[in-house]
Protein backbone atom coordinates (compact mmCIF):
# COMPACT_ATOMS: atom_id res chain seq x y z
CA UNK A 1 0.00 0.00 0.00
CA UNK A 2 1.17 3.53 -0.75
CA UNK A 3 2.52 5.38 2.27
CA UNK A 4 0.45 7.99 4.02
CA UNK A 5 1.58 11.61 4.31
CA UNK A 6 0.12 14.55 6.16
CA UNK A 7 -2.63 16.73 4.69
CA UNK A 8 -0.45 19.69 5.70
CA UNK A 9 -1.77 23.13 6.55
CA UNK A 10 -3.34 24.01 3.20
CA UNK A 11 -5.74 21.12 2.55
CA UNK A 12 -8.75 23.38 2.43
CA UNK A 13 -8.12 24.35 -1.17
CA UNK A 14 -8.36 20.74 -2.32
CA UNK A 15 -10.91 19.32 0.09
CA UNK A 16 -13.46 22.03 0.79
CA UNK A 17 -15.64 21.15 -2.20
CA UNK A 18 -16.92 18.18 -0.17
CA UNK A 19 -17.44 20.02 3.11
CA UNK A 20 -20.84 19.08 4.51
CA UNK A 21 -21.78 19.95 8.08
CA UNK A 22 -25.46 19.05 7.78
CA UNK A 23 -26.68 15.67 6.59
CA UNK A 24 -30.32 16.23 7.51
CA UNK A 25 -33.14 17.34 5.25
CA UNK A 26 -36.90 17.63 5.41
CA UNK A 27 -38.53 14.24 5.43
CA UNK A 28 -35.43 12.35 6.51
CA UNK A 29 -36.35 9.36 8.65
CA UNK A 30 -34.74 9.54 12.09
CA UNK A 31 -34.03 11.82 15.01
CA UNK A 32 -32.04 14.89 14.07
CA UNK A 33 -29.10 15.49 16.39
CA UNK A 34 -26.21 17.92 16.66
CA UNK A 35 -22.75 16.82 17.71
CA UNK A 36 -20.18 19.46 18.44
CA UNK A 37 -16.85 19.69 20.15
CA UNK A 38 -13.30 20.81 20.03
CA UNK A 39 -9.99 19.28 19.01
CA UNK A 40 -7.15 19.84 21.46
CA UNK A 41 -3.44 19.11 21.10
CA UNK A 42 -0.96 17.88 23.70
CA UNK A 43 -0.74 21.36 25.26
CA UNK A 44 -4.51 21.58 25.48
CA UNK A 45 -4.48 24.14 22.69
CA UNK A 46 -7.28 24.07 20.13
CA UNK A 47 -6.40 22.74 16.67
CA UNK A 48 -7.77 25.20 14.11
CA UNK A 49 -6.42 23.37 11.07
CA UNK A 50 -8.01 19.92 11.32
CA UNK A 51 -10.64 18.30 9.16
CA UNK A 52 -12.95 15.53 10.33
CA UNK A 53 -14.65 12.96 8.15
CA UNK A 54 -17.69 11.16 9.48
CA UNK A 55 -19.33 7.94 8.27
CA UNK A 56 -22.44 6.49 9.83
CA UNK A 57 -25.46 4.28 9.28
CA UNK A 58 -28.96 5.67 8.80
CA UNK A 59 -31.63 5.49 11.47
CA UNK A 60 -32.28 1.85 10.62
CA UNK A 61 -28.64 0.87 10.94
CA UNK A 62 -27.93 0.60 7.21
CA UNK A 63 -24.92 2.18 5.51
CA UNK A 64 -25.65 4.04 2.32
CA UNK A 65 -24.85 2.26 -0.92
CA UNK A 66 -25.93 5.22 -3.01
CA UNK A 67 -23.59 7.68 -4.62
CA UNK A 68 -23.04 11.08 -3.11
CA UNK A 69 -23.81 13.46 -5.99
CA UNK A 70 -23.22 17.17 -6.35
CA UNK A 71 -26.93 17.86 -6.66
CA UNK A 72 -29.11 16.77 -3.82
CA UNK A 73 -26.27 15.49 -1.68
CA UNK A 74 -28.25 16.66 1.32
CA UNK A 75 -31.67 16.82 -0.14
CA UNK A 76 -32.67 13.48 -1.53
CA UNK A 77 -31.38 10.76 0.74
CA UNK A 78 -29.12 10.17 3.65
CA UNK A 79 -25.50 10.08 2.48
CA UNK A 80 -23.93 9.02 5.77
CA UNK A 81 -20.68 10.84 4.89
CA UNK A 82 -19.70 14.30 6.11
CA UNK A 83 -16.49 16.33 5.97
CA UNK A 84 -16.19 19.14 8.50
CA UNK A 85 -13.12 21.35 9.09
CA UNK A 86 -12.48 22.86 12.52
CA UNK A 87 -12.85 26.62 12.91
CA UNK A 88 -10.34 29.10 14.32
CA UNK A 89 -11.20 27.92 17.85
CA UNK A 90 -10.62 24.28 16.94
CA UNK A 91 -14.36 23.60 17.04
CA UNK A 92 -16.60 21.60 14.74
CA UNK A 93 -20.31 20.96 14.56
CA UNK A 94 -22.15 18.22 12.70
CA UNK A 95 -25.89 18.11 12.13
CA UNK A 96 -27.03 14.58 11.41
CA UNK A 97 -29.42 11.90 12.62
CA UNK A 98 -29.00 9.40 15.42
CA UNK A 99 -27.62 6.29 13.71
CA UNK A 100 -29.33 2.99 14.30
CA UNK A 101 -27.59 -0.03 15.79
CA UNK A 102 -25.83 -2.08 13.13
CA UNK A 103 -26.69 -5.75 12.80
CA UNK A 104 -23.66 -7.91 12.11
CA UNK A 105 -23.66 -11.54 11.04
CA UNK A 106 -24.38 -14.30 13.57
CA UNK A 107 -26.86 -12.14 15.44
CA UNK A 108 -24.42 -9.74 17.05
CA UNK A 109 -24.93 -6.01 16.79
CA UNK A 110 -23.00 -2.79 17.10
CA UNK A 111 -24.37 0.02 19.23
CA UNK A 112 -25.21 3.29 17.45
CA UNK A 113 -21.95 4.98 16.53
CA UNK A 114 -20.28 7.28 14.03
CA UNK A 115 -16.87 6.56 12.52
CA UNK A 116 -14.44 9.49 12.50
CA UNK A 117 -11.23 10.15 10.61
CA UNK A 118 -9.12 13.06 11.86
CA UNK A 119 -6.67 14.75 9.51
CA UNK A 120 -4.34 17.64 10.27
CA UNK A 121 -0.87 19.06 9.88
CA UNK A 122 1.36 17.02 12.18
CA UNK A 123 -0.51 13.77 11.55
CA UNK A 124 1.47 11.68 9.10
CA UNK A 125 -1.45 9.22 9.10
CA UNK A 126 -5.09 10.00 9.88
CA UNK A 127 -6.39 9.12 13.30
CA UNK A 128 -9.39 6.81 13.33
CA UNK A 129 -11.90 6.79 16.16
CA UNK A 130 -15.61 6.38 16.85
CA UNK A 131 -18.35 8.36 18.54
CA UNK A 132 -20.79 6.41 20.72
CA UNK A 133 -23.63 7.93 22.70
CA UNK A 134 -23.50 8.00 26.49
CA UNK A 135 -26.36 6.23 28.22
CA UNK A 136 -27.17 3.90 25.32
CA UNK A 137 -27.93 0.43 26.64
CA UNK A 138 -26.47 -1.27 23.58
CA UNK A 139 -23.03 0.14 24.41
CA UNK A 140 -22.60 -2.60 27.02
CA UNK A 141 -22.63 -5.27 24.33
CA UNK A 142 -20.80 -3.38 21.61
CA UNK A 143 -17.98 -5.55 20.24
CA UNK A 144 -15.63 -2.63 19.53
CA UNK A 145 -16.28 -0.65 22.68
CA UNK A 146 -15.60 -3.79 24.70
CA UNK A 147 -12.07 -3.97 23.29
CA UNK A 148 -11.31 -0.60 24.87
CA UNK A 149 -10.01 -0.59 28.46
CA UNK A 150 -12.92 0.43 30.69
CA UNK A 151 -11.13 3.48 32.06
CA UNK A 152 -10.68 4.92 28.56
CA UNK A 153 -14.15 4.21 27.13
CA UNK A 154 -15.57 7.54 28.19
CA UNK A 155 -13.41 9.27 25.57
CA UNK A 156 -15.56 7.67 22.89
CA UNK A 157 -18.88 8.71 24.43
CA UNK A 158 -20.67 11.84 23.26
CA UNK A 159 -22.51 13.33 26.22
CA UNK A 160 -25.98 14.74 25.95
CA UNK A 161 -26.46 18.41 26.74
CA UNK A 162 -29.47 20.01 28.33
CA UNK A 163 -30.36 21.34 24.91
CA UNK A 164 -32.49 18.70 23.26
CA UNK A 165 -30.75 16.26 20.94
CA UNK A 166 -27.40 17.99 21.27
CA UNK A 167 -24.23 16.10 22.11
CA UNK A 168 -20.67 17.10 22.95
CA UNK A 169 -17.69 15.07 21.84
CA UNK A 170 -14.12 16.39 22.00
CA UNK A 171 -10.95 14.96 20.55
CA UNK A 172 -7.93 15.08 22.84
CA UNK A 173 -4.80 14.13 20.94
CA UNK A 174 -2.70 13.54 24.06
CA UNK A 175 -2.85 13.67 27.84
CA UNK A 176 -4.59 11.75 30.62
CA UNK A 177 -7.93 11.90 28.77
CA UNK A 178 -6.41 11.13 25.39
CA UNK A 179 -9.10 9.97 22.99
CA UNK A 180 -9.01 6.30 22.07
CA UNK A 181 -7.79 5.79 18.53
CA UNK A 182 -7.87 2.56 16.55
CA UNK A 183 -5.42 0.80 14.28
CA UNK A 184 -6.40 -1.64 11.59
Amino acid at each position, binding site marked *: *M*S*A*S*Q*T*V*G*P*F*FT*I*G*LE*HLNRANLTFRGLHGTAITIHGQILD*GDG*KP*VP*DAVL*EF*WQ*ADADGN*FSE*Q*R*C*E*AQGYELSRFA*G*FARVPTDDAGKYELRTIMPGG*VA*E*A*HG*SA*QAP*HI*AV*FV*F*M*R*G*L*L*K*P*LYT*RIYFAGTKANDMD*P*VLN*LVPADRRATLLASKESRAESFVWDVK*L*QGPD*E*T*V*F*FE*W
Partner: protein
Amino acid sequence: MNDPRPYRKFGVGTQPEYLHPSYVSTIKRAPTKPLILLPRTKTETTGPIFGHSLVTARDSDLTTQHEGEPLGERIILSGRVLDEEGRPVREALVEVWQANAAGRYRHKADQHGAPLDPNFSGCGRVMTDADGRYRFVTIKPGAYPWGNHHNGWRPQHIHFSLFGAGLLSRLVTQMYFPGDPLLEFDPIFNSIPDEKARNRLVSQFDWEATQPNHALGYRFDIVLRGREQTPVEK
Protein backbone atom coordinates in the same frame (compact mmCIF):
# COMPACT_ATOMS: atom_id res chain seq x y z
CA MET B 1 -17.35 -10.10 15.16
CA ASN B 2 -18.49 -12.05 12.39
CA ASP B 3 -15.77 -11.84 9.92
CA PRO B 4 -12.70 -13.08 11.73
CA ARG B 5 -10.27 -12.30 8.91
CA PRO B 6 -7.98 -9.53 10.06
CA TYR B 7 -7.09 -6.61 7.89
CA ARG B 8 -3.93 -7.23 5.99
CA LYS B 9 -0.99 -5.92 7.96
CA PHE B 10 1.11 -3.08 6.66
CA GLY B 11 4.59 -4.14 5.58
CA VAL B 12 7.20 -3.24 8.20
CA GLY B 13 8.39 0.32 7.76
CA THR B 14 6.09 1.06 4.84
CA GLN B 15 4.04 3.62 6.77
CA PRO B 16 5.23 6.50 8.94
CA GLU B 17 4.80 6.37 12.70
CA TYR B 18 2.59 9.06 14.21
CA LEU B 19 5.49 10.46 16.22
CA HIS B 20 8.36 11.63 14.03
CA PRO B 21 10.14 14.30 16.09
CA SER B 22 12.09 15.82 13.21
CA TYR B 23 8.68 16.81 11.85
CA VAL B 24 8.05 19.06 14.82
CA SER B 25 4.25 19.29 14.51
CA THR B 26 3.95 15.58 15.32
CA ILE B 27 5.25 16.11 18.86
CA LYS B 28 2.07 17.62 20.28
CA ARG B 29 -0.32 15.89 17.93
CA ALA B 30 0.74 12.24 17.80
CA PRO B 31 -1.20 9.90 20.11
CA THR B 32 0.81 8.66 23.08
CA LYS B 33 -1.37 5.78 24.28
CA PRO B 34 -1.63 2.40 22.58
CA LEU B 35 -4.00 2.19 19.64
CA ILE B 36 -6.76 -0.42 19.82
CA LEU B 37 -6.72 -3.05 17.08
CA LEU B 38 -10.00 -2.89 15.22
CA PRO B 39 -11.99 -6.00 14.26
CA ARG B 40 -13.89 -6.10 10.98
CA THR B 41 -17.34 -4.63 11.10
CA LYS B 42 -19.74 -3.26 8.51
CA THR B 43 -18.73 0.24 9.51
CA GLU B 44 -15.31 -0.05 7.95
CA THR B 45 -15.97 -2.50 5.14
CA THR B 46 -18.54 -0.05 3.77
CA GLY B 47 -17.74 3.56 2.90
CA PRO B 48 -18.93 6.53 0.92
CA ILE B 49 -19.09 6.28 -2.84
CA PHE B 50 -19.09 9.35 -5.00
CA GLY B 51 -21.00 10.19 -8.13
CA HIS B 52 -19.61 11.52 -11.39
CA SER B 53 -21.52 14.76 -10.90
CA LEU B 54 -18.93 15.78 -8.28
CA VAL B 55 -16.26 15.91 -10.96
CA THR B 56 -16.31 17.93 -14.19
CA ALA B 57 -13.74 17.92 -17.01
CA ARG B 58 -12.50 21.29 -15.78
CA ASP B 59 -11.63 19.76 -12.40
CA SER B 60 -8.90 17.57 -13.91
CA ASP B 61 -7.21 20.35 -15.88
CA LEU B 62 -5.77 22.85 -13.43
CA THR B 63 -4.40 24.93 -16.31
CA THR B 64 -7.82 25.87 -17.70
CA GLN B 65 -9.72 26.91 -14.59
CA HIS B 66 -9.21 30.63 -15.22
CA GLU B 67 -9.24 33.07 -18.09
CA GLY B 68 -5.52 32.90 -18.71
CA GLU B 69 -3.00 30.11 -18.42
CA PRO B 70 -1.04 29.73 -15.20
CA LEU B 71 2.69 30.39 -15.27
CA GLY B 72 5.03 27.46 -14.88
CA GLU B 73 5.96 24.18 -16.47
CA ARG B 74 2.86 22.41 -17.77
CA ILE B 75 2.77 18.70 -16.86
CA ILE B 76 0.50 15.75 -17.51
CA LEU B 77 0.16 13.57 -14.47
CA SER B 78 -1.39 10.14 -14.78
CA GLY B 79 -1.38 6.74 -13.19
CA ARG B 80 -3.45 3.90 -11.85
CA VAL B 81 -5.12 3.30 -8.53
CA LEU B 82 -4.83 -0.36 -7.51
CA ASP B 83 -5.72 -2.43 -4.50
CA GLU B 84 -3.16 -4.60 -2.70
CA GLU B 85 -3.84 -7.49 -5.04
CA GLY B 86 -3.12 -5.37 -8.07
CA ARG B 87 -6.72 -4.99 -9.14
CA PRO B 88 -7.82 -1.61 -10.45
CA VAL B 89 -9.90 0.52 -8.10
CA ARG B 90 -12.68 1.83 -10.29
CA GLU B 91 -14.51 5.10 -9.75
CA ALA B 92 -12.22 6.11 -6.93
CA LEU B 93 -12.46 9.81 -6.11
CA VAL B 94 -9.02 11.42 -6.37
CA GLU B 95 -8.62 14.94 -4.98
CA VAL B 96 -5.41 16.95 -5.45
CA TRP B 97 -4.06 20.27 -4.24
CA GLN B 98 -0.73 22.00 -4.67
CA ALA B 99 1.31 25.19 -4.64
CA ASN B 100 1.74 27.25 -7.80
CA ALA B 101 4.93 27.36 -9.85
CA ALA B 102 6.41 29.91 -7.46
CA GLY B 103 5.80 27.71 -4.43
CA ARG B 104 2.77 29.57 -3.07
CA TYR B 105 -0.61 28.11 -2.09
CA ARG B 106 -3.81 30.02 -2.62
CA HIS B 107 -4.56 29.81 1.10
CA LYS B 108 -4.84 32.56 3.70
CA ALA B 109 -2.37 30.84 6.01
CA ASP B 110 0.40 30.71 3.39
CA GLN B 111 2.73 33.58 4.24
CA HIS B 112 5.50 32.74 1.78
CA GLY B 113 6.61 35.88 -0.06
CA ALA B 114 6.32 34.29 -3.51
CA PRO B 115 3.59 35.64 -5.80
CA LEU B 116 0.12 34.21 -6.22
CA ASP B 117 -0.89 33.39 -9.77
CA PRO B 118 -4.33 34.78 -10.68
CA ASN B 119 -4.70 31.95 -13.17
CA PHE B 120 -4.01 29.10 -10.79
CA SER B 121 -6.14 27.77 -7.94
CA GLY B 122 -4.13 24.62 -7.35
CA CYS B 123 -6.97 22.21 -6.72
CA GLY B 124 -8.44 19.44 -8.81
CA ARG B 125 -10.29 16.16 -8.75
CA VAL B 126 -10.98 13.25 -10.97
CA MET B 127 -12.58 9.83 -10.82
CA THR B 128 -10.69 6.71 -11.91
CA ASP B 129 -11.95 4.83 -14.95
CA ALA B 130 -12.69 1.11 -15.31
CA ASP B 131 -8.95 0.34 -15.36
CA GLY B 132 -8.32 2.46 -12.28
CA ARG B 133 -6.67 5.17 -14.39
CA TYR B 134 -6.69 8.86 -13.63
CA ARG B 135 -5.16 11.86 -15.39
CA PHE B 136 -4.55 15.49 -14.46
CA VAL B 137 -3.07 18.39 -16.38
CA THR B 138 -1.40 20.92 -14.12
CA ILE B 139 1.82 22.87 -13.67
CA LYS B 140 4.83 21.68 -11.73
CA PRO B 141 4.58 23.11 -8.21
CA GLY B 142 7.49 25.09 -6.80
CA ALA B 143 9.46 24.23 -3.68
CA TYR B 144 8.71 26.46 -0.72
CA PRO B 145 10.19 27.26 2.69
CA TRP B 146 8.60 26.16 5.97
CA GLY B 147 9.35 26.89 9.59
CA ASN B 148 9.94 23.33 10.78
CA HIS B 149 13.72 23.75 11.04
CA HIS B 150 16.47 26.14 10.00
CA ASN B 151 16.41 26.77 6.24
CA GLY B 152 13.72 24.13 5.78
CA TRP B 153 12.25 23.71 2.29
CA ARG B 154 9.55 21.31 1.19
CA PRO B 155 10.41 19.42 -1.99
CA GLN B 156 8.07 19.96 -4.91
CA HIS B 157 4.97 17.92 -4.24
CA ILE B 158 1.29 17.47 -5.00
CA HIS B 159 -1.15 16.39 -2.28
CA PHE B 160 -3.42 13.42 -3.09
CA SER B 161 -6.57 12.30 -1.27
CA LEU B 162 -8.31 9.05 -2.26
CA PHE B 163 -11.36 7.02 -1.35
CA GLY B 164 -11.36 3.38 -2.39
CA ALA B 165 -13.58 0.42 -1.54
CA GLY B 166 -14.38 0.56 2.16
CA LEU B 167 -13.69 3.23 4.71
CA LEU B 168 -10.27 1.94 5.71
CA SER B 169 -8.89 2.21 2.21
CA ARG B 170 -8.90 5.98 2.73
CA LEU B 171 -5.51 7.44 1.84
CA VAL B 172 -4.02 10.91 1.94
CA THR B 173 -0.50 11.19 0.62
CA GLN B 174 1.91 13.39 -1.30
CA MET B 175 3.50 12.82 -4.69
CA TYR B 176 7.07 13.96 -5.28
CA PHE B 177 9.20 14.48 -8.38
CA PRO B 178 12.22 12.43 -9.46
CA GLY B 179 15.65 13.89 -8.84
CA ASP B 180 14.51 16.54 -6.38
CA PRO B 181 17.57 17.42 -4.25
CA LEU B 182 15.32 18.46 -1.36
CA LEU B 183 13.94 14.96 -0.81
CA GLU B 184 16.85 13.79 1.32
CA PHE B 185 16.36 16.71 3.71
CA ASP B 186 12.59 16.50 4.05
CA PRO B 187 11.34 15.12 7.39
CA ILE B 188 7.86 14.41 6.00
CA PHE B 189 9.13 12.32 3.07
CA ASN B 190 11.69 10.64 5.32
CA SER B 191 9.09 9.76 7.95
CA ILE B 192 8.55 6.58 5.90
CA PRO B 193 11.26 4.25 7.20
CA ASP B 194 11.39 1.85 4.25
CA GLU B 195 13.34 3.25 1.33
CA LYS B 196 11.33 1.43 -1.33
CA ALA B 197 8.05 2.53 0.19
CA ARG B 198 9.36 6.07 0.33
CA ASN B 199 10.42 6.02 -3.28
CA ARG B 200 7.02 4.77 -4.37
CA LEU B 201 5.80 8.29 -3.58
CA VAL B 202 8.20 9.68 -6.18
CA SER B 203 6.57 9.95 -9.60
CA GLN B 204 8.44 8.85 -12.70
CA PHE B 205 9.07 10.77 -15.85
CA ASP B 206 6.73 9.30 -18.45
CA TRP B 207 7.89 9.57 -22.04
CA GLU B 208 4.70 7.93 -23.33
CA ALA B 209 2.49 10.50 -21.66
CA THR B 210 4.67 13.40 -22.75
CA GLN B 211 3.06 15.45 -25.51
CA PRO B 212 5.37 16.96 -28.15
CA ASN B 213 5.65 20.75 -27.95
CA HIS B 214 3.17 20.79 -25.08
CA ALA B 215 3.94 19.15 -21.76
CA LEU B 216 6.09 16.60 -19.94
CA GLY B 217 4.37 13.51 -18.57
CA TYR B 218 4.76 12.05 -15.09
CA ARG B 219 3.40 8.74 -13.85
CA PHE B 220 2.27 8.03 -10.31
CA ASP B 221 0.56 4.77 -9.35
CA ILE B 222 -1.18 4.45 -6.01
CA VAL B 223 -1.98 1.31 -4.03
CA LEU B 224 -4.88 1.47 -1.59
CA ARG B 225 -5.40 -0.75 1.42
CA GLY B 226 -7.40 -3.60 -0.05
CA ARG B 227 -10.46 -4.91 1.58
CA GLU B 228 -9.77 -8.50 0.70
CA GLN B 229 -12.90 -9.51 -1.05
CA THR B 230 -15.17 -12.22 0.17
CA PRO B 231 -13.85 -15.51 -1.21
CA VAL B 232 -15.91 -16.76 -4.12
CA GLU B 233 -17.77 -19.91 -3.18
CA LYS B 234 -17.19 -22.73 -5.60
